[in-house]
């Protein structure tokens, strides 16, 4: 943009910023896509005023590349707006409308002020049009980024939520917990565990908390509830995977784990479970060096025999 064009555009914007702002905000609030349930006139007016000021600052520099440094502040206003709207659940067009709705009032203004200079009017109109288009697209882009962040966060939460119940052996279930345990999640964990106990008729359930980063009184409470519920279903629970720090925390918090069996590792817990079922793991005379034969699994399985009573 040439310096003189930029200057005259700046002049026009500065000339009656208040009136321009008012018509712009009126347009936004009056448009059918205005979400009165998500935002207020006050909020829109606030954003609009800040953006208009920054826009004027940026235009004065004469730089049309909106990624250049004079546009930093204007971009920041748009960033904030798009991010906020993405979180609040606005649609992309509703968000982009913020910038595009400035066109109409601005062009009206140009037409009125430059009625005697059609040449300048045409230049300014096309310049401003191009500029606002880029800004609108930029808004949409930021909006998309905001949505992507929301999706990523939800994915993360989902991952934490999924807790498989695995069968270690006939009658032995394991529940490897990963991520923080809150009330809602404990409920899901408890329900799926109990359902699996019914389905599989398991008599021992091992709750492995290796993947639980911290244990506070609430988490301990949830664990104890799960253990109590499993006991009511006729299954014994073993808590395994207690890290040294967590053991310290549990004792410092004064949490009473009562009669619950606790083990440091899942292997220890599994050994106890097998013993309870009257099973034992034996070492066969010569362990094969490599898994090079089919049916090797069968050999391993046959080494797990019931001990003679």
């Amino acid at each position, binding site marked *: 943009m040439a310096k003189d064009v930029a200057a005259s555009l700046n002049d026009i914007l500065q000339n009656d910023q208040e009136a321009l702002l008012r018509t712009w905000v009126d347009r936004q609030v009056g448009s059918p896509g205005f979400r009165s349930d998500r935002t207020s006139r006050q909020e829109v007016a606030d954003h609009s005023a800040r953006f208009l000021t920054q826009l004027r600052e940026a235009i004065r520099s004469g730089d049309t590349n909106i990624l250049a440094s004079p546009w930093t502040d204007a971009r920041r206003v748009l960033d904030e707006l798009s991010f906020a709207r993405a979180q609040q659940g606005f649609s992309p067009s509703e968000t982009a409308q913020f910038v595009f709705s400035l066109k109409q009032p601005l062009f009206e203004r140009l037409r009125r002020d430059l009625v005697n200079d059609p040449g300048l009017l045409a230049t300014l109109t096309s310049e401003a049009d191009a500029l606002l288009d880029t800004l609108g697209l930029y808004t949409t882009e930021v909006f998309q980024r905001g949505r992507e962040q929301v999706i990523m966060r939800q994915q993360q939460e989902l991952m934490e939520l999924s807790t498989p119940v695995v069968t270690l052996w006939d009658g032995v279930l394991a529940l490897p917990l990963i991520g923080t345990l809150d009330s809602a999640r404990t*409920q899901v964990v*408890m*329900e799926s565990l*109990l*359902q699996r*106990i*019914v389905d599989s*008729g398991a*008599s021992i359930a091992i709750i492995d908390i290796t993947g639980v980063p911290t244990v506070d009184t609430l988490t301990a409470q949830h664990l104890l*509830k799960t253990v*109590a*519920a*499993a*006991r*009511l*279903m*006729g*299954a014994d629970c073993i808590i395994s995977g207690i890290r040294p720090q967590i053991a310290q925390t549990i004792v410092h918090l004064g949490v009473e784990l009562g009669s619950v069996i606790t083990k440091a590792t899942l292997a220890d817990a599994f050994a106890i479970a097998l013993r309870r079922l009257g099973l034992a793991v034996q070492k066969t005379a010569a362990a094969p060096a490599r898994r090079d034969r089919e049916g090797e699994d069968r050999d391993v399985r046959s080494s797990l025999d019931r001990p003679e009573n």
Partner: protein
Amino acid sequence: MGEYLLVSIQVDMHDRLAMTLQADLTDRIVSVHAKGVLIDISALEMVDSFIGRMLGDLAAMSRVLDAETVVVGMRPAVAITLVELGLALKGVRTALNVERGMDLLRNRIDARGREDAGRE
């Protein structure tokens, strides 16, 4: 069933029924010299704190009358409710189904028989 009593709760328990059950059960334990009581609650879909306490009471009464008690067939939803109500039924033995319950009962009574024999 021999020296065992099987109590199967098939209908939704209301308070008066629960009291009647307590009276009947204690009478029967004495009259048949029962050594074990199996309470099957697999048909019970809803529990409140009263029923929860009643189950605990039943077990305690049977114990006083020298009979082992096992509660079997509790549904997951019922188990969660009882735990949320703070009634973990401490001191009540539980098993997944009637079969397991009978095994448990036999083992307990055998063990007790051995203990008594050892003491004499």
